[in-house]
């Protein structure tokens, strides 16, 4: 007996969008290092454009209220900000899990002490190569390797939870076992072995960085061997080089699904390379609340879900698994942000891309184009 059945059916509600899990807070683009694969954009924000301490604190409060769980203080070098310890303390008091991603270079030792004192949960220290000369050359900074060893010792003394960040390319791809041993020697609980992702500076330097398929396969086998050897002591997370993969990476866990990125001058992005996509406009946290940007911002909604997809993504069984790959890579390589990521073997451009990668990997080594304010 139901009159209810005769009533007009309510429109099925769209699934409620959950709040973001993480916020990448790029406090500054200033950095002593000049890594040729830096994830910062080609056009860097100046110090004069940076958000103030009060603006970051307001943003942190908004993030905590919105449901962000992890905050990543990054840059540039986050410890070049004089207020870094103050911001870590503020985030910690707001209940956020606080991460800081550092180069280890360019700040006074006392700053690290202050950050630890402020309640930092987890620190990530980058290492460019095991060989000190290569490390310094990739970082574009003499003495970088030595300085990183000193900072690692300070981190151990402070008892901070450490992850070693190793970005992998053709000049250090043979050093995987060395990176793992270094992480163990430094007392790290975790290492990230991440092959270069080719956007921005990485794309500019792609031919200088691209390893061969054979090198990548060897590196992957070495990661697996290290995982069994260090099981229970060291967590090894690896990011694969997607040009040689069969399916693309589930970039950011889906566009506007898990993470927000705020640039030094306050632009809120779905990922750090999103500004390379023509036609998108980005809200600034100086003008809108974080919640408004997450739920209603045009950029965050541009590639949410699967409605925007074209073939072969639209009818693909994996479309909810990898979301067609990376929108920025589709833009960079296919000239269309809604195309299938050419890293996917189902993309019509994939074969060409693999051939290009193999040719670049076999090319002569040449000098890096270093990251800097002068642009490319």
């Amino acid at each position: 007996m139901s009159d209810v059945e005769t009533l007009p059916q309510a429109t099925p509600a769209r699934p409620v969008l959950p709040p973001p899990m993480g916020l990448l807070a790029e406090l500054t683009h200033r950095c002593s290092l000049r890594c040729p694969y830096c994830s910062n954009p080609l056009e860097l924000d100046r110090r004069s454009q940076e958000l103030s301490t009060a603006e970051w604190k307001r943003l942190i409060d908004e993030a905590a209220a919105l449901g962000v769980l992890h905050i990543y203080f990054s840059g540039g070098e986050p410890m070049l900000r004089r207020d870094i310890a103050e911001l870590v303390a503020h985030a910690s008091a707001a209940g956020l899990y606080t991460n800081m991603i550092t180069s280890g270079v360019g700040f006074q030792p006392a700053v690290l002490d202050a950050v630890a004192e402020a309640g930092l949960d987890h620190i990530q220290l980058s290492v460019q190569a095991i060989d000190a000369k290569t490390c310094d050359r990739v970082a574009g900074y003499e003495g970088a390797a030595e300085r990183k060893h000193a900072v690692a010792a300070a981190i151990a003394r402070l008892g901070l939870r450490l992850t070693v960040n190793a970005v992998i390319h053709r000049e250090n791809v043979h050093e995987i076992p060395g990176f793992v041993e270094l992480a163990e020697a430094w007392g790290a609980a975790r290492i990230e072995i991440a092959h270069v992702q080719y956007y921005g500076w990485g794309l500019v330097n792609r031919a200088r960085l691209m390893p061969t398929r054979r090198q990548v396969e060897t590196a992957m086998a070495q990661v697996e061997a290290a995982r069994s050897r260090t099981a229970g002591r060291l967590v090894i997370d690896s990011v694969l080089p997607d040009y040689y993969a069969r399916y693309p990476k589930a970039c950011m866990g889906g566009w506007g699904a898990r993470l927000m990125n705020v640039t030094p001058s306050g632009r809120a992005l779905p990922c750090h390379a999103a500004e390379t996509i023509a036609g998108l406009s980005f809200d600034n946290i100086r003008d809108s609340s974080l919640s408004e940007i997450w739920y209603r911002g045009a950029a965050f909604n541009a590639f949410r879900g699967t409605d925007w997809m074209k073939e072969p993504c639209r009818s693909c069984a994996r479309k909810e698994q990898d979301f067609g790959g990376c929108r920025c890579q589709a833009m960079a390589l296919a000239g269309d942000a809604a195309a299938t990521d050419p890293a996917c073997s189902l993309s019509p451009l994939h074969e060409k891309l693999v051939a290009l990668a193999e040719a670049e990997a076999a090319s002569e080594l040449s000098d890096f184009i270093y990251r800097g304010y002068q642009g490319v």
Partner: protein
Amino acid sequence: MKADATHIGIAAIVPALPRGVRLRFDESRQQWFLLGPERVFEPDEIALEILQRVDGARSVEAIAQELAAAFAADRDEIAADVMTFLRGLADQRMVDL
């Protein structure tokens, strides 16, 4: 006996959350989370009962005893389950054993 010796060995272990691992309640989702470096665990009801007793003071024995009393279950079985659960987290460096 061998089985007892193993049992005693397990029972005496005092698990703790290391620095850099936090158990917290999130108001916006009305849900508990165990947070670590690049890790977000959503504990179910039983996992939460265990984690809330991981304080660097209670032994596995003590935790099992409390849970056995609370849920009217066999203490030894619970101790074994607690240990399996904690070992899984220890492999991820989310718990110190």
